[in-house]
């Protein structure tokens, strides 16, 4: 359900991303409903609710057996309704209603002044909130996303650059490199070149660092091997000395026993 682009505009605009909406509509895989609100032509007289929106949603869901619903954007819709109390009550009811119907719903909304969303209510009634942001640094414009809330699941709390193209949504790491070498270049022109040069310089430094470390390791290995040789030599000397002394002792013992035998013979001869 679109509140900003008409069905024709939508069909044309997402065509560049590879979606053929008119075919999908013909195959009953999607249902488009453009909701137009012109506050100037609406006169408010007494009590009302937004049941008409629910009926239209219900009808659209039923016509294709939808499991997913997209509302883009909720602000356009609710800004067309003059009564803020009705808006708040109906936002709540809408979220709950979609949930009860088992719909996975993506609702886009604008950022509020102090809250994430304009009415400061949407983020509380949603199960998941993703904050999208667009920033320019060094003439490079990057879309960034951050998961603010994800009920029933752990999630990363950091901000990540992202990119939408005909292949889908790419979410990169914090390293900008991932984005610009990714799908067909986000960075273009001199900004890209300078970024590449920077990256190359960093690469070179990293390479040199690696070489130095290797040399250092070599040196250490040689030092260690030298020490091992020394210890071995020392051991050999000691071993030789010990063997020599053992031999002498054995010789001495043999001498003693020979001497005894000789003595005994002499005594017998007496």
């Amino acid at each position, binding site marked *: 359900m679109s509140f900003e682009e008409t069905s024709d505009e939508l069909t044309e605009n997402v065509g560049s991303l590879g979606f053929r909406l008119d075919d999908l509509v013909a195959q009953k895989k999607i249902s488009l*409903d453009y*909701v*137009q*609100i012109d506050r100037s*032509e*609406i*006169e*408010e*007289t*007494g*009590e*009302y*609710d*937004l*049941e*008409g*929106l629910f*009926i*239209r949603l*219900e*009808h659209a869901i039923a016509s294709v057996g939808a499991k997913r619903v997209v509302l883009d954007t909720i602000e356009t*819709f609710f800004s*067309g*309704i003059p009564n803020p109390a009705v808006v708040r009550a109906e936002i709540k009811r809408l979220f709950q209603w979609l949930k009860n119907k088992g719909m996975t719903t993506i609702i886009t909304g604008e950022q509020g002044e102090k809250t994430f969303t304009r009415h400061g209510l949407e983020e509380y009634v949603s199960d998941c909130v993703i904050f999208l942001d667009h920033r320019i640094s060094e003439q490079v414009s990057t879309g960034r996303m951050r998961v603010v809330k994800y009920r029933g699941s752990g999630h990363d709390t950091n901000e990540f650059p992202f990119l939408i193209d005909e292949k889908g949504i790419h979410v990169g790491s914090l390293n900008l490199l991932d984005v610009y070498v990714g799908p067909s270049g986000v960075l273009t022109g001199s900004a890209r070149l300078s970024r590449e040069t920077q990256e190359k310089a960093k690469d070179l430094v990293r390479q040199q660092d690696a070489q130095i470390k290797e040399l250092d390791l070599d040196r250490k290995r040689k030092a260690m091997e030298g020490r091992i040789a020394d210890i071995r030599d020392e051991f050999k000397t000691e071993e030789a000395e010990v063997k020599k002394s053992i031999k002498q002792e054995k010789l001495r013992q043999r001498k003693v026993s020979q001497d005894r035998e000789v003595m005994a013979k002499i005594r017998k001869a007496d």
Partner: protein
Amino acid sequence: MATKTKRLKKNRGEPKGELKTWELRLYVAGQTPKSMEAFSNLKKLCEERLQGQYRIEVIDLLENPALAKGDQILAIPTLVRKLPEPIKKIIGDLSNKERVLVGLNLLPIA
């Protein structure tokens, strides 16, 4: 179309062509108190101000949801002035008579 419509034609032999016919369409969703209120308020007002020159069509969106798209209906009840042009929309139970008159572009009784 299986639209459940109530047509209230009030033609009491007014000279044709001289007076413009008012074509009003009231969108409701089931017989809720608000819808009933809106209908009775509308009928009263039309009898007072537009006797014999109006036609009210009540469309129940619960029975015919596809019709909501055509007139871009969101709020219930909504009164649409189809004729005379331009199209005007008045939302709510029409309890505020002055606002209804403003919305319909009907000048207060002199």
